């Protein structure tokens, strides 16, 4: 994952390393900084949306079913969602496990 899209040879860099495409930071997948990922237990989830509200990286988004889905490309694994969840429905699991 990660920054493959942003990597280029020095001759192809814009003048002064400028970024000429607005919004291109979406391509910079920063999720590989993460050492832990949140795992959601939908049996415990009450769809309160606190994970969605508290996430500093806007990684959670609501779904039609009322649950919240998680985007692995940008989650840094900070664990705020797990800490704030009133039902302990989110567990932080080491990547690779």
């Amino acid at each position: 994952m990660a920054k493959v899209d942003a990597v280029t040879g020095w001759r192809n860099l814009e003048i002064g390393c400028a970024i000429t495409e607005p919004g291109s930071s979406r391509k910079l997948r920063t999720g590989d900084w993460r050492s832990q990922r949140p795992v959601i237990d939908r049996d415990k989830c009450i769809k309160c949306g606190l994970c969605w509200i508290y996430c500093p990286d806007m990684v959670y988004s609501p779904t039609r079913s009322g649950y919240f889905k998680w985007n692995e490309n940008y989650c840094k694994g900070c664990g705020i969602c797990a800490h704030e969840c009133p039902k302990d429905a989110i567990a932080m699991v080491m990547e690779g496990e």
Partner: protein
Amino acid sequence: MPRKVGIEVSLAASEAACAADVDVIAAYPVTPQTHIVEHLSELVADGELDAEFIPVESEHSAMSACIGAAAAGARTFTATSAPGLALMHEILFIAPSLRTPIVMVVANRALSGPISIWNDHSDIMAERDCGWIQTFAENGQEVFDLIIHAFRVAEDPEVLLPVIVNMDGFTLSHVIEPIELLSASEVSQYLKPYKPQMVLDPKAPITMGPVGVPEVYTEARQQAESVLNGSKKVIVKAWKEFAKQYGRSYKPIETYRTKGAEVILMTMGSVTETAMTAVDRMREKGIPVGLMRFRLWRPFPLEEFRRAVKGIKTLAVVDRAISFGAQGGPVCSKVKSALYGAPDQPQVFGFISGLGGRDITVAMFEEMVKKAIRYAEKGKGPMYELIGVRER
């Protein structure tokens, strides 16, 4: 027609920026500032120059404002000196990285301590590796001309780098000289309007100065290094065209009486005129000495330097700053590294002098040359020494 007037060199520098029709001047207006921006603020206030004058609260902010202005497509000028330049240090590296073609005049002065406001090169030598093109003027006319040249080079689409024009503090900045001033219309024949390649514009948003993650930073630095080295051909070409336009010719390295010379004095800046007198006197006595002066310091004119010293037996390199703990001055160290691997290398001896406003006299230049000749005959001498230090 160009007009020759008696004018303080600092004011001539402002007249050059005015003739270049700058759009923005951002500068800290209090000491260590010279009359350069003082006069520019008058020119703007009097309506003689249509530009924004931004008086900021520090040189750190001055350079930041200059970068912003240049990024928005403005022709940008500033000036500073010694501690002001040091306060810009952090931002100095950003200007070439963002490829913002700012022109700055630095009135070279000593860095404290002990507290000194007088002339030497310790301020600029601390910034020699910041990625700017750097030239050194010998006299007031050259200050004026190098500023015009600096805009032309800086704004060249192949370059887009900031330029520092160095002039000696006080010995140039506060001295009245006869200088041929060019008018804005005369300059406009040589210096076309600035056409920026990248502009901050809300209608077509781009990002300048983003984070350079480890995957990008090295490539960005390679770009900056490659462009700075490549700028030399543009610099030389722009000087040639300056000569065609205005009749005054400039080269990366200036030589004086080097024909038949065995030993060469190497200098930078205004002390060169005193050194010329010393060379004349020694030549009268039959000493085969000549003189070379670096006008272009960054990018270092490696090929020109090696060509110039071909066949020379001895170099006496004059530094006006100490590289503390490096066993020499920055110019001498660079000269030595530039010679490494070259065939028939001359012997190089470093002389540090003229620190903190102390004059380098004709006799002191003669002492350096005589010492260099003596060391070369013996085949050994000190790597460097301070000239004119009182021992007791």
